[in-house]
C-alpha cells in the first residue's frame, strides 16, 4: 500500500507520491495533473468529480459544488457561510450541531463528504498511476486554517477511505519542496496565493530543520474573488448593452464566471483579450443575445489591486509576529495559481525588495512537499538516535528525590498530576535508575569528579557549585547534539554507561555522493546534501573520519522549474544496495499554531492557553475549579483567535469534565492539559489536581462529526458511483 501527498485545493487538487527517491505528480488517465475540486451530482445518480464536474458547472450549477474549501469547517452562523450562500448557486442548509449541509438532488451531504468525493477521485488517480492501493495520505491545508477546518479536512480524508497521517500547512509543504537539499542557512518567505485562500509563512531553513517563524493568512481571499469581480464587470457590460442582468440567473452567471477565469488567465500572458460568448440570454423577440467582452491587462489590474493589497496586510502581520523587517528574507517563494498574475509578481517584488523565486511549479509544489513529508513519516528505517542525556548541573544532587515514583510512597501517589500515560512514562525512570549512581549522599558530587578541569572543585560538602563551576559543568555535560562538541569520555557521566562510539550515531556512515542521480539535469541533488557543521558532528561523533575527507558539497545548479518528468529527486531509494550509505534524512518541519487558543473566563473574556505562533507539538495546562457545592460537571468553552473578548473569536466547542468528585465549591480543581499535536489539532486531557486521578474530558467541536457518523459517511461515500 502506498502513501501519497494530496494538495486539496480550493479550485484544484494535486496528488503526488515519492517513488524510488523521486517525487512524482500523479496524472489521471489522460495525463492531466490537476484535478478540479468540483463535484457534480448527475441526474443518473452518478457523482462526477474533476473535469466532467467542472463542465457541469455551467449546465447544472445547483447540483455542482465548487470551492467547498471556503466553507469547510465553518459553523452555520458564521460570516463565511452567509457569504457562501449569497455567492454559490448550490443550496446550503443548517444541519445538526451547526454543521452546514449541501443539498443536491434531494440528498443532504456534509461539507467533508463533498471534499471526500474529490479525495476519493484523487486516491483513484494515484492508485491507477502507481498500480497499487493507496491507504494513507498527508493532506495539506492553508496555514491559517483553524482547528475546525483542520478537523473537517481530516474527516474528509477518513470518509474517502484514507488514513490521514498528518495535516500539514501548504506553505510549509512548499518550503519543503523548495528547500530540500539546500544546506545553506536561509530565511525565506512563502507567498501562497491560491484560488480561495492566501497565506504568508516565514521560515528559517538550516539544512536539517525548517523552522516556521510566523504564519498569517486570510482564508477568504483568492483568485476566485478576482474571477467574481471580472464576472461582475461582464454582467454590467451586458446589462448596459442588452438590458438584461445575467446575475439574475445562476446558470448564466456561472457561465460568465467560468469565462472570467479564462479571461484572467489569458491576461497573464497578453495585454488585452476579447471574448465572445454566444447565447448568454434570450432577447425580446426570442433572439439570442451574445456577450462581447474586451478587457485589457490594465483594467484587470485595477480590479485586482484591492485584493492584492490585502495580501500585503497579511504579510505585514506575519512580519510583525516574527518581529523581523521585510528586508530579512533571502528568498521569496511563490505558491498558488494566483501568483501567475504579473501584477502579483510585481507587487511582491516591490514589497519584499527581492525577485520572487518560481523555479517550482506554483500549482504542484504543495503536493510535492506533501509527498515528501508523507514519505518521511512512513520511513521507519532511518531515524535519529538519541545522545546521552545531560546532567542537570545545579540541581543534580537532589535528582533522585524529585518526582518520586508512583507507589514508592503512599502520599505521593495521591499527588501525581500528570496524565496516566505520562505517569507510565515516569515509571520508566525505574529502568534508568540502576544506571545512575546510587550513593545515598544527597549532595553527592557529579561528573566534575571525573573531569580534571574542574575536578578539585568537587567536594563532598553540601556546598553548591559556584556559578562558574556550574557553567563549566553544564558545558561538560552538554548533550552530544550540541554544536560539534567532542563526545564525553565513557566514564564522564553516570548516565552514559557505555562509550559514545558504540552509540548508534556511529552507525551513520559518512555522506557520500554515490547516490547522485545519473542525469546531470536531475537537479536539486539532495544526495549531495552537504553536511553542515552540525550534521557533520552528528554523523561523525567519533571523528574517526577527518572532516576534510568528507565530500565537498556539489554546487547546486541553477534550476529550471520542475518539469513534467524531471521530478525533484529527494532521497536515495530505500532499497539502496548496502555499500551505499543512507541518504540524509528529510528536513524536520517545526511548524506553529496559526491562532491563539483561548478559554472563556468570567465576564466573557478570554484566558490565552496557547499563544499564536507557538511551536507544535506543544501543550499547556490550566486549572479549573468547581463554582458551586457538589458540582460534578464543569464545562469549559474553547475558541481560537486573538480577540480579548471571547465571542469575537472562532468558537470551537466545549470541553466537558464529568463525574467529578462531589465536594464543596472550589475544592475540586481540575487540571486540563491542552495538547496541540503535529497536525495543529487539539486534544484535551484532564486530571483532578488533588487526587491525581484522570478526569473524564471530551472536546466536542462545533459541526464536526463523531466517529460513528464518519463511518456511516464513509459507507455512503464508498457506495457512490464516481466518474
Amino acid at each position, binding site marked *: 500500500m502506498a502513501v501519497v501527498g494530496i494538495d486539496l485545493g480550493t479550485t484544484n487538487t494535486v496528488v503526488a507520491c515519492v517513488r524510488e527517491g523521486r517525487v512524482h505528480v500523479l496524472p489521471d488517465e489522460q495525463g492531466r495533473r490537476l484535478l478540479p475540486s468540483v463535484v457534480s451530482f448527475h441526474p443518473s445518480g452518478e457523482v462526477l468529480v474533476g473535469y466532467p464536474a467542472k463542465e457541469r458547472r455551467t449546465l447544472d450549477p445547483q447540483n455542482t459544488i465548487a470551492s467547498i474549501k471556503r466553507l469547510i469547517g465553518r459553523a452555520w452562523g458564521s460570516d463565511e457561510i452567509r457569504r457562501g450562500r449569497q455567492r454559490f448557486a448550490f443550496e446550503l442548509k443548517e444541519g445538526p450541531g451547526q454543521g452546514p449541509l449541501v443539498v443536491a438532488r434531494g440528498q443532504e451531504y456534509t461539507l467533508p463528504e463533498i471534499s471526500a468525493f474529490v479525495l476519493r477521485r484523487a486516491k483513484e488517480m494515484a492508485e491507477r498511476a502507481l498500480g497499487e492501493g493507496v491507504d494513507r495520505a498527508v493532506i495539506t491545508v492553508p496555514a491559517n486554517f483553524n482547528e475546525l477546518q483542520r478537523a473537517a479536512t481530516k474527516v474528509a480524508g477518513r470518509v474517502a477511505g484514507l488514513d490521514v497521517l498528518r495535516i500539514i500547512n501548504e506553505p510549509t509543504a512548499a518550503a519543503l519542496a523548495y528547500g530540500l537539499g539546500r544546506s545553506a542557512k536561509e530565511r525565506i518567505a512563502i507567498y501562497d496565493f491560491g484560488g480561495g485562500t492566501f497565506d504568508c509563512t516565514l521560515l528559517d531553513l538550516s539544512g536539517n530543520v525548517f523552522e516556521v517563524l510566523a504564519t498569517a493568512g486570510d482564508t477568504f481571499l483568492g483568485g476566485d474573488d478576482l474571477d467574481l469581480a471580472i464576472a461582475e464587470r461582464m454582467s454590467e457590460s451586458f446589462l448596459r448593452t442588452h438590458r438584461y442582468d445575467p446575475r439574475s440567473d445562476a446558470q448564466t452567471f456561472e457561465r460568465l464566471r467560468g469565462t472570467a477565469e479564462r479571461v484572467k488567465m489569458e491576461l497573464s500572458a497578453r495585454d488585452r483579450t476579447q471574448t465572445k460568448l454566444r447565447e448568454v440570454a434570450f432577447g425580446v423577440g426570442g433572439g439570442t443575445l451574445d456577450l462581447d467582452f474586451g478587457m485589457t491587462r490594465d483594467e484587470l489590474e485595477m480590479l485586482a489591486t484591492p485584493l492584492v493589497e490585502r495580501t500585503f496586510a497579511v504579510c505585514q502581520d506575519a512580519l510583525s509576529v516574527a518581529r523581523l523587517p521585510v528586508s530579512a528574507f533571502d528568498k521569496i517563494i511563490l505558491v498558488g495559481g494566483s501568483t501567475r498574475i504579473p501584477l502579483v509578481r510585481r507587487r511582491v517584488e516591490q514589497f519584499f525588495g527581492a525577485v520572487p523565486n518560481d523555479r517550482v511549479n506554483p500549482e504542484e509544489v504543495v503536493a510535492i512537499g506533501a509527498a515528501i513529508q508523507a514519505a518521511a513519516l512512513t520511513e521507519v528505517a532511518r531515524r*535519529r538516535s538519541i545522545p546521552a542525556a545531560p546532567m542537570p548541573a545545579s540541581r543534580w*544532587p537532589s535528582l533522585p528525590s524529585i518526582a518520586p515514583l508512583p507507589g514508592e510512597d503512599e502520599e505521593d501517589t495521591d*499527588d501525581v498530576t500528570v496524565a496516566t500515560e505520562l505517569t507510565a512514562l515516569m515509571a520508566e525512570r525505574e529502568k534508568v535508575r540502576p544506571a545512575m549512581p546510587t550513593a545515598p549522599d544527597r549532595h553527592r558530587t557529579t561528573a566534575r569528579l571525573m573531569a580534571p578541569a574542574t575536578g578539585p572543585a568537587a567536594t563532598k560538602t553540601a556546598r553548591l557549585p559556584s556559578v562558574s563551576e556550574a557553567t563549566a559543568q553544564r558545558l561538560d555535560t552538554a*548533550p552530544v547534539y550540541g*554544536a560539534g562538541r567532542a563526545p564525553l569520555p565513557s566514564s564522564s557521566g553516570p548516565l552514559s554507561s557505555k562509550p559514545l562510539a558504540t552509540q548508534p550515531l556511529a552507525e551513520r556512515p559518512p555522506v557520500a555522493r554515490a547516490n547522485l542521480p545519473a542525469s546531470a539535469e536531475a537537479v536539486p541533488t539532495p544526495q549531495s546534501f552537504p553536511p553542515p557543521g552540525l550534521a557533520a558532528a552528528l554523523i561523525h561523533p567519533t571523528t574517526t573520519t577527518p572532516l576534510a575527507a568528507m565530500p565537498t558539497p556539489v554546487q547546486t545548479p541553477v534550476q529550471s522549474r520542475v518539469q513534467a518528468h524531471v521530478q525533484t529527486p529527494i532521497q536515495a531509494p530505500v532499497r539502496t544496495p548496502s555499500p551505499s550509505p543512507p541518504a540524509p534524512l528529510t528536513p524536520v518541519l517545526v511548524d506553529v499554531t496559526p491562532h491563539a487558543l483561548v478559554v472563556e473566563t468570567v465576564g466573557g473574556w478570554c484566558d*490565552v492557553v496557547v499563544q499564536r505562533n507557538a511551536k507544535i507539538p506543544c501543550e499547556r495546562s490550566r486549572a479549573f475549579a468547581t463554582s458551586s457545592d457538589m458540582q460534578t460537571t464543569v464545562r469549559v468553552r474553547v475558541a481560537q483567535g486573538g480577540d480579548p473578548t471571547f465571542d469575537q473569536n472562532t468558537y470551537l466547542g466545549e470541553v466537558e469534565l464529568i463525574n467529578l468528585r462531589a465536594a464543596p465549591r472550589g475544592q475540586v480543581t481540575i487540571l486540563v492539559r491542552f495538547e496541540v499535536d503535529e497536525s495543529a489539532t487539539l486534544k484535551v486531557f484532564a486530571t483532578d489536581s488533588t487526587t491525581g486521578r484522570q478526569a473524564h474530558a471530551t472536546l466536542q467541536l462545533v459541526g464536526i462529526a463523531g466517529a460513528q457518523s464518519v463511518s456511516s459517511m464513509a459507507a455512503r461515500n464508498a457506495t457512490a458511483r464516481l466518474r
Partner: protein
Amino acid sequence: MIDPSSDESRSSGESIFAWLAVLDDLTYYELFGVHREASIDEIQRAFHAFCDTFHPDRHVGREPRQGEALKAIFKRGAEAYAALCDERLRGQYDDQLAAVRQSPLPPPRITFSPLSRPPSARPTAGAPLEESVRSASARPFARRAEELLQKGDLRQAKLQLVMANHMDPDNEALETALRDLELLLGSPK
C-alpha cells in the same frame, strides 16, 4: 526496517528515558546545552540541533512509550525556545533561576499566560513550604500549592493553601504564605 529489539533501538530507547528522567531538572539552558549568556543565534542553532534529534518526526515507528517520551521532551524544548527567544520572558526566567538556584526544587518554568503573574513573586522561594507542615493531611495541599505557584497559577495555589491551613491550623509558615499570596492577588497590576 529496524527491529525494535535491536541494539540500536534499545540503547536509543534507554537514552530517551534517561532524558525524560532528568527533564524536570534541566534548566532551559541545560536542555539545549547552551550557556546562560547565549545569543539568540546560538539558541536558535541549539534549538535546531535539538529538533533534529528530538522532533517526533525524526522517530517514526518507535514504540508508543518511546514516542510519548520524545514528545514530552520536544514539548519542553519548544517551551524553552519560546521563553528564551522572548526578551521579557527570558529576563523573567533568569530572575527565577537565580532565585531558586540554591534550592533543591526543580528549575522554574515559564507559563505563557498573560493573566498569570510571574512566579518570581512566589513567597516561598528557597524554603520548601512542605517541610514546615506538621500534619500529614495538610502536606499534599502545601505541595500542590507550591507547584501551582511555580506554574504561576496564584488563584488555585491560594485555594490549596487555604486547605493546607485548614488541615494544619496555627502553622505560622502556612499562614504567612497565605497572607503573602492574598496580598499579591489583591495588589492591582
